[in-house]
């Protein structure tokens, strides 16, 4: 089990500190969990690339001492797919927001999952658009408020785990910023997994989501995360009543299926080409 609290500075790009994230934002906790996972991974940082989209989560690549791309809104997985195919030995990690992955980038998200290409998605879900000032996301819960649903949201939400599972992702997990031990563990599991891996992390946005919905201070929001999630992964047995109103967390799928760069390498080999995954 990865430990926290060790010296993680070597993984961070010091000249980019401090981050743009608001005081009390959960994204810093996620970044720390990524650093912890990298420490346990032990791979030379020259062999790692971190890519992000647009939004609060999209700033993640700036803060790590790796090659990095801060790409366009929703489309980081397209860039990541090209980079991974060009250099299959590279460990490619992407940071996506909930609007990034499930609204503007939903098409890219499901197709990258379908290909089962060896990429890691860390999906920072704060239930709202933070960077632009608190607008409704496809993850904003029913009846919750945002600046573009001032009278309460009337739309159903996307469930990242259901979507990732249905689209063909081969490692699918969800946790929260409250679960400080599980975060790095799941991220490490996702990076080590040889296929398309998604870790959704519910993260608190005290500045917009918390304030607009009167959820209190950041510690109250962490408490809220704990009280509205339930461990319900592939090994747990829980009742329908227990699940009601709660979001299941845990590792929901971890299986080996043919991976895209390896499939492509096989195709090249059959044609006499020298591509190696």
């Amino acid at each position: 089990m990865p430990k926290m609290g060790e010296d993680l500075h070597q993984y961070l790009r010091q000249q980019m500190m401090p981050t743009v994230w608001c005081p009390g934002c959960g994204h810093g906790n996620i970044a720390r969990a990524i650093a912890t996972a990298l420490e346990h991974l032990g791979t030379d940082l020259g062999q790692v690339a971190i890519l992000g989209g647009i939004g609060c989560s999209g700033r993640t690549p700036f803060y790590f001492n790796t090659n990095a791309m801060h790409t366009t809104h929703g489309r980081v997985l397209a860039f990541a797919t090209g980079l991974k195919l060009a250099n299959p030995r590279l460990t490619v990690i992407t940071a996506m927001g909930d609007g990034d992955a499930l609204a503007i980038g939903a098409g890219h998200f499901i197709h990258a999952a379908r290909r089962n290409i060896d990429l890691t998605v860390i999906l920072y879900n704060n239930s709202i658009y933070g960077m632009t000032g608190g607008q409704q996301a496809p993850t904003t819960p029913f009846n919750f408020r945002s600046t573009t649903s001032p009278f309460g949201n009337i739309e159903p939400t996307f469930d990242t785990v259901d979507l990732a599972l249905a689209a063909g992702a081969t490692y699918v997990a969800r946790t929260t910023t409250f679960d400080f031990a599980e975060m790095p563990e799941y991220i490490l599991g996702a990076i080590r997994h040889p296929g398309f891996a998604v870790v959704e992390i519910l993260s608190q946005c005290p500045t917009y989501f918390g304030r607009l919905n009167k959820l209190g201070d950041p510690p109250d929001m962490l408490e809220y995360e704990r009280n509205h999630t339930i461990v319900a992964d592939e090994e747990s047995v829980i009742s329908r009543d227990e699940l009601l109103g709660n979001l299941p967390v845990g590792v929901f799928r971890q299986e080996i299926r043919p991976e895209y760069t390896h499939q492509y390498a096989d195709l090249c080999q059959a044609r006499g080409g020298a591509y190696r995954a």
Partner: protein
Amino acid sequence: MRLVQGNEAVVLGALAGGCNFYAGYPITPATEIMEQMARVLPARGGVFIQMEDELAALGAVIGAAWGGMRAMTATSGPGFSLMQEHIGYAAMTQTPCVIVDSQRVGPSTGQPTMPAQGDVMQARWGSHGDRPAIVVTASSVKDAYQMTQLSFEWADTYRLPVIVLLDAVLSHMRENVELPPAPPPFSRTLSPDVDVEKPFGNHPFVPFAETTRTIVTGLAHDETGATRGTVGHASEKIIRDAFNRLNHDYAAITQYREYRLEDAAWAVVSYGITARAARAAVDILRGEGMRVGLLELISLWPFPEPTVQSLARQVQGILMPELNLGQLILPLRAAVEGICPVAGLGRADGELFTPEEIANAMTSHSTHAERRVSHHA
């Protein structure tokens, strides 16, 4: 000697230019480029992938470029419109890549199988903000090969997306051409003396490597990639420098072809597939005794101002036929204003101009221009 289709020539030219990565999305009339890439790249150890849309295709191309590959995509109008976002990203991040756009009639779905030249402005000005651009076109299968090959070189040298404009006729047209065999697969060798601390600005393109810690971002940044501090000024300087490099190398980038211009008193300035009808029109008019010639533009952007200005000083009038309702005539008029009159001939109905139509327009332009001159006298 082989009978080669325009789209096939793009593939062969790309391989000659070192292309080893293709990402695309099917669209008429560019699809054959993608189909043939799917056949040839695996055997060469290159990468082919069909993406979920054109935005993803160009995104993958940019990612692959940073992964060290020579990458391209091809599309047509609707897909080219979608790609504008990532053309801007490639420009902002100084990422070498090649985009082929086989033009069809627009706007929107338009006439998918019919030729047009309505993307010449979008190729230059598409995507928000200011960006330097190299845009080339072709009027023959051989040109399609050569300009695609050259585009990869320029993309690397000038670190920008180079756009190759074809049209629905040229894409599907076959001609007998003699082409050299494809060279061995490309592999990028990194110069050991590159400054990995300065991956942007007036420095060579260095893809991700063990020793680099590059941050590629579409945010305004300085030559180190940093986005903080007085970055607006630094970012503007990077873009200005890129414009200046194109200006400095204007003569090397500018490609054109002259036909019967030596003693011409009148000129047709044309480009792409339309230039072929214009060449035939010049022959018709010469047969009728008119001293007329053709300037065929092959590189469209940077717009060859000095070239058209010196032509304008030689002739009494210029006609520009193009398969749109008046696009490239705008920079032409701006360049030769006050030197000689320019008339346009445009259509966007999916048909080519015939040589006779261009000849008639040239005759009519010369008559009117002469009348204008005598009025002034």
